[in-house]
């Protein structure tokens, strides 16, 4: 590896969020098809890790959400908008419960239903971001799913505290 690239690499081979988000593609730009994301997220990873990996995806998303270091819910919504994760609607039910709907979900919107929820990574991401922002434990449970169950939105019940 050239010396100037090595100097910018993460220690011990760990890929940090900041490093992963550096994009340099002068001709192709920083956009890629949703199809590519889904092939990796839904097809390739599940082929390797297996059907029982929902919890692993959830925990991975949660750790990522926490690591974003956000301080306001609006910042999280801005990131979701910037990355075209989906159209997010937050419904506050009471002090300890939220419901979040994701429409046009990047992971599954448009798919034929497969009979099970699919967006556990996204649920973890939401829970992790909220945990970081609110400074209290947050757990997400996917209760509806566009591509998984044929619903109108991917919906997550959030328990806080």
């Amino acid at each position, binding site marked *: 590896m050239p010396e100037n690239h090595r100097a910018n690499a993460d220690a011990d081979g760990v890929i940090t969020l900041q490093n992963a988000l550096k994009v340099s593609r002068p001709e192709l730009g920083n956009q890629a098809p949703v199809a590519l994301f889904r092939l990796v997220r839904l097809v390739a990873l599940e082929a390797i890790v297996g059907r*029982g*990996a929902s919890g692993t995806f959830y925990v991975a998303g949660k750790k990522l959400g926490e690591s974003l270091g956000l301080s306001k819910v609006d910042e999280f919504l801005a990131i979701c908008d910037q990355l075209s994760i989906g159209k997010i609607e937050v419904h506050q039910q009471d002090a300890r419960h939220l419901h979040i709907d994701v429409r046009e979900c990047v992971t599954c919107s448009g798919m034929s239903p497969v009979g099970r929820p699919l967006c556990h990574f996204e649920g973890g991401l939401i829970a992790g971001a909220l945990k970081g922002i609110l400074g209290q434990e947050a757990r997400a449970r996917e209760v509806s799913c566009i591509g998984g169950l044929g619903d109108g939105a991917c919906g997550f019940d959030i328990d806080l505290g």
Partner: protein
Amino acid sequence: MHQAPAQRHWLAGQLDELDALARDRDHRAREASQGHGDEAVARTARDEFLRAIDRFVTAVSQREHVLACVVGHEGLVLATGGDLADAETLAAVSQVWLASAQTGAEQVKLGPLTQMVVIGAAFKVALFQAGGMSIAILAPTGADLASSLAGP
């Protein structure tokens, strides 16, 4: 000579009960989805199954030496009992451990995996499978968990 009936292992009995309830839930759900059964009956069977899981984790976590009990499906938490800060990670890791061990068990022809124990320097986790769920029981490494879960 008359012999007293052998005492049923407490945890084995609990796991058998969960297994039976899971089979009933699946059967009722299948019947309802195929139009042969009542949707309300399927819902009742599912609710009874979930209540049984809640009773199970509470009962297990109250046994001597047990710190916590987590029941998961596909690595996601269904119910927790006891004192554990990060049940979500334990549920996810338990699923990975069991899936990995199952693969190895098949290769050396052990038969279907029924239980395994992962022992750390401070704590250990006993893992079981029942009704399509993973069950993780956390205890201090030196605890005699087998005895704690055996008696009535």
